[in-house]
């Protein structure tokens, strides 16, 4: 155990049971979990979505979301029985002694108020300090969270501040009353890797400076390894195991934990390099943009049959715009797209039905990409009917074959609605719908980034199998370099609308790199608890060396 166990206990949760309501029945979400946290200690809660991490974290504040209830157990916060006291007293603790940092700061800041007004609300309403003092304090904490222009940034509205900065402003806001405990609920999940590092290190420093205890909720093992003293693994509302970070990483005991650890090791076999042949898709000197600004600046790359080209970069680097140009949704200002060596009309409206059929897309959010009112039969059947003219029995046969291809039993699933599927299954339907058109080329836009790692791995393996079965060419848009390692043959690195580096994957992950590729690669968290510390020291040393 780490040294923090010598400190007094701050929070004890015993045999916590939480139920969620669906219709008229209550079903368990948390099934008897214990948690003990000492002052100044950070415990990591990890597990897949639906494991009950957030529910348990919120329960530490004596809070449940609408439709949930704490049905059993005891929560003791610094000698106060949180479940026995009236709601008014629990409210007096929230924000003041126990604070919360939400996953999406962009959605969790009130769009109607300036950042500093939202910062000051807690201290002023809880009677901790007057407004003027709170404002001065906000500037100080913004500075400590290394926000640019700490004196002024508070006077902006949330929409005027970037995601990474908002996440830091939210951490500063959580610190405003100097709480004893902060719940961090996936605070960096929505951020790019390069931004994530800044937020992680700022959070880690400020928690250490004020000796604040924290519950750090995430599904990313490498992130939790940097942040937590101890790790607790949850699976469907039950605890799988708990131990201090180093021993958990070195020797996970339970099979489930081991399976989580193993996900990151998936990689497809290396393909021989393509030297000849006409590429399926060739992007040539494309410049494109919206309004007056160019989002893409003279980019070009080729994609061959049976190959996966990963396009990586931060949000705003032009990855999705590239996809829009290839599909004809955004005609380029200059340059052209060749398909099997033939130029494609720039606008999709001028492309023939067969040209449209050859290039299909799979989207990031399967939830919003599938029409919720249509059954799978129609969702998958429509492209098969439209592009291939299948009807009646032949169409039903085709739908069944497609469902079998994506490993869903046709009998069981053919008449289901999207709402009756899990996240991974929905994404499989997205794949089947793309396959139904019998394309040569598929664009996968962040297809695994909304999924848990185990589910994501299943999708990657499926895509891999389908590629060799049907000779497909993939363009794989992602910001996750672990996914690139797993599935790509070639990599295109984009920054600010330009291609900064491209080549076979093996070369890309070997030095020497372009400086931006280097930054991206080094920013991917590793499963080593000392990784962040070492990385920050390295970067500081390099800056010192340059300066």
């Amino acid at each position: 155990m780490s040294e923090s166990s010598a400190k007094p206990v701050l929070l004890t949760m015993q045999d916590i049971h939480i139920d969620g309501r669906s219709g008229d029945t209550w079903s368990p979400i948390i099934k008897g979990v214990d948690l003990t946290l000492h002052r100044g200690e950070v415990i990591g809660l990890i597990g897949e979505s639906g494991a009950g991490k957030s529910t348990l974290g919120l329960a530490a504040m004596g809070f449940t979301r609408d439709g949930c209830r704490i049905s059993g157990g005891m929560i003791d916060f610094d000698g106060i029985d949180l479940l026995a006291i009236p709601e008014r007293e629990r409210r007096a603790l929230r924000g003041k002694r126990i604070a919360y940092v939400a996953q999406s700061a962009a959605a969790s800041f009130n769009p109607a108020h300036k950042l500093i007004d939202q910062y000051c609300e807690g201290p002023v309403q809880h009677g901790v300090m007057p407004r003027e003092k709170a404002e001065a304090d906000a500037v100080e904490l913004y500075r400590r969270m290394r926000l640019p222009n700490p004196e002024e940034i508070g006077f902006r509205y949330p929409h005027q501040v970037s995601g990474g900065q908002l996440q830091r402003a939210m951490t500063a806001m959580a610190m405003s009353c100097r709480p004893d405990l902060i719940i961090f609920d996936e605070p960096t999940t929505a951020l790019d890797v390069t931004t994530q590092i800044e937020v992680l290190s700022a959070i880690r420093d400020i928690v250490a400076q004020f000796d604040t205890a924290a519950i750090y909720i995430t599904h990313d093992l490498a992130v939790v390894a940097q942040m937590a003293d101890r790790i607790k693994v949850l699976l469907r509302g039950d605890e799988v195991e708990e131990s201090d970070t180093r021993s958990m990483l070195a020797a996970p005991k339970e099979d489930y934990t081991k399976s989580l650890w193993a996900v990151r090791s998936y990689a497809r076999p290396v393909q021989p390099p393509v030297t000849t042949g006409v590429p399926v898709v060739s992007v040539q000197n494309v410049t494109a943009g919206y309004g007056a600004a160019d989002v893409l600046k003279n980019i070009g790359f080729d994609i061959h049959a049976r190959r996966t080209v990963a396009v990586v970069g931060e949000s705003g680097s032009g990855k999705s715009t590239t996809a829009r140009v290839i599909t004809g949704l955004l005609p380029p200002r200059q340059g052209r797209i060749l398909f099997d060596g033939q130029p494609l009309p720039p606008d999709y409206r001028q492309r023939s039905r067969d040209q449209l059929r050859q290039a299909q897309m799979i989207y990031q959010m399967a939830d919003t990409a599938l029409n919720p009112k249509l059954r799978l039969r129609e969702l998958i059947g429509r492209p098969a009917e439209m592009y291939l003219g299948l009807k009646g029995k032949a169409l039903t046969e085709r739908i069944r074959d497609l469902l079998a291809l994506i490993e869903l039993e046709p009998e069981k699933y053919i008449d289901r609605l999207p709402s009756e599927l899990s996240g991974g299954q929905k994404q499989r339907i997205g794949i089947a719908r793309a396959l139904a058109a019998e394309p040569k080329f598929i664009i996968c836009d962040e297809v695994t980034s909304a999924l848990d790692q185990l589910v994501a791995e299943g999708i990657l393996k499926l895509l891999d199998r389908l590629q060799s079965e049907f000779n497909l060419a993939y363009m794989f848009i992602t910001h996750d370099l672990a996914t690139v390692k797993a599935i790509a043959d070639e990599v295109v690195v984009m920054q600010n609308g330009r291609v900064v580096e491209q080549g076979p994957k093996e070369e890309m992950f070997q030095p020497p790199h372009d400086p931006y590729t280097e930054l991206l690669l080094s920013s991917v968290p590793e499963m080593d608890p000392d990784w962040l510390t070492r990385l920050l020291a390295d970067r500081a040393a390099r800056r010192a060396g340059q300066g």
Partner: protein
Amino acid sequence: MSDIWSMIARRLLLGLLTLFVISLIIFGATELLPGDLAQNILGQSATPETVAAFRRELGLDLPAHTRYVNWLLGALQGDFGTSLANKRPIADLIATRLSNTLFLAVYAAALSVPLSLMLGILAALWRNSIFDRAANALALTSISFPEFFVAYILIFVLAQSGLFPSMARMDPTTTFSEALYRTFLPALTLTLVVTAHMMRMTRAAIINLLASPYIEMARLKGMSPARVILKHALPNALAPIVTVVALNLAYLITGVVVVEVVFVYPGLGQLMVDSVAKRDFPVVQAVALIFAAAYVLLNLTADVLSTLSNPRLIHRK
């Protein structure tokens, strides 16, 4: 801020354009009415010479577009011509009626807007409670009855007992407090009719936001339910509320004929209905134009206010 001014200017221009189109429609519609105006007024026994002379006097012998331009230019200067029925200038005729209508509308708005906003906010705060259900049921009941029915019930309850007068007569000597007293029943009737709509929209707009992450964040900061509603939900719910309020205010100006009739209140609505019956078209045109202007102006105000309530639109990146 310059963005806001140019937005307002654009909206104003659009509003003027709308009014112009409406004036064309109003003028065109009265043109299309069958029968000859002069003949109608003078009766079947009039000789063709008298009719022709009268047509010249009314300007009816001029082509339609000339008459339209004359009418519009006059209207822009506040001169709507003279009434056919009593030969008085329409502007004079309308002036007192318009101020009566505005008085009643403002009176009813002053009662109903605060009341419905307060009820809506409280219903959202105590949603699904007895209060919420009772307020909803009452509001729905009052909106479901026709206005004249509500008016007669009020007269039956409040006027028969002698508390308030059932006739809302107004004359130049009426003092302000006297006017408030005399028009209490019509104002209350209108309040009962419009409150439900605004209250339910306020409640729905607020409750719609309660599942947002920033509302959960406010609750997790330990803020009281009242503060969560007033400080965190309400500012984001203003746009739909303002729109509904504006629609109801427009109704209070343009749609209260029945209530005016029941309470014998000399407003624009009554004037309009009377003039239609008497085929006094210049008056009908003038009143219709005023009603249209009220609608356009109120909707424009609502648009501008909703924009002002959204910091994303005023404070650009």
